[in-house]
């Protein structure tokens, strides 16, 4: 069977129904373990003090804010190339989750920045591109709501998503090629010397797993809702014509 058949609306509703509760349960478990471990059972950092505990929220949320947009970009490209309705609906479903992840990253970053940098906000390249990404999320959701025809909405939001991807990529890499901002480099790296210490790294990995699973669970649930809304509108239109 082709991979695309799993994205057929009927088949998608079939395979996601048993997967959804398990994904939510695993997400809840990882988040509970990671956050409790990080909050209660890790030491303070010698420079950052107890504010290091904010890393367990900030890093996974920022990671998901960027990756949610990348997922929306892939889904939008699939829509543009293959006209696959479920992919357009999945992109739409992911946007509000991405907004929440971006908000958490911005808020926790600001609240950490005040004691560490002496300011809640700076027009640093990474922070600014992140704020623009947040505005793109809002614009993307508004565009879906503003256009009545779903296919036209999917076309236009796909274009917006492609443009916004520049800021998603900038949010991730601005710190590397604009060497003038306050924001430090990545907290996670495959290079052991650049990585955070193991005592912070392991609970952080569990939190990241929790955020990824929660994102997947929410996108699956919200996509199922969008498919049902689409079916309901089609049935209502048919009843009106009859």
């Amino acid at each position, binding site marked *: 069977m082709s991979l695309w058949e799993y994205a057929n609306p009927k088949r998608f509703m079939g395979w996601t129904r048993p997967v959804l509760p398990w994904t939510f349960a695993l997400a809840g478990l990882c988040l509970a373990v990671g956050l409790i471990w990080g909050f209660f059972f890790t030491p303070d950092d010698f420079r950052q003090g107890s504010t290091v505990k904010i890393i367990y929220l900030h890093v996974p949320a920022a990671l998901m804010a960027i990756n949610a947009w990348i997922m929306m970009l892939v889904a939008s490209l699939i829509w543009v190339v293959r006209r696959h309705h479920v992919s357009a609906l999945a992109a739409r479903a992911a946007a509000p989750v991405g907004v929440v992840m971006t908000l958490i990253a911005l808020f926790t970053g600001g609240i950490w920045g005040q004691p560490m940098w002496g300011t809640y906000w700076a027009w640093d390249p990474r922070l600014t591109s992140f704020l623009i990404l947040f505005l793109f999320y809002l614009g993307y959701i508004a565009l879906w709501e503003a256009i009545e025809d779903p296919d036209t909405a999917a076309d236009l939001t796909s274009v917006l998503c492609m443009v916004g991807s520049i800021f998603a990529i900038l949010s991730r890499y601005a710190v590397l090629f604009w060497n003038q901002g306050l924001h430090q480099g990545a907290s996670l790296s495959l290079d052991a010397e650049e990585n955070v210490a193991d005592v912070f790294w392991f609970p952080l990995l569990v939190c990241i797993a929790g955020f990824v699973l929660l994102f997947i669970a929410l996108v699956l649930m919200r996509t199922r809702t969008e498919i049902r809304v689409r*079916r309901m509108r089609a049935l209502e239109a048919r009843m009106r014509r009859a």
Partner: protein
Amino acid sequence: MPDLGTYAVEVLSAYAVSIALLAAIVGLSWRRYVRVRAALERVEKND
């Protein structure tokens, strides 16, 4: 409760707001999921 020292307000507010936002998106998504499912069932019955 760990001793958060002088940064207790910052750390606790970061956790409180983040958990509230996560709970809000889960709660709102679930509420819409249930409502739309019930509405579709009604429409399918009338069809």
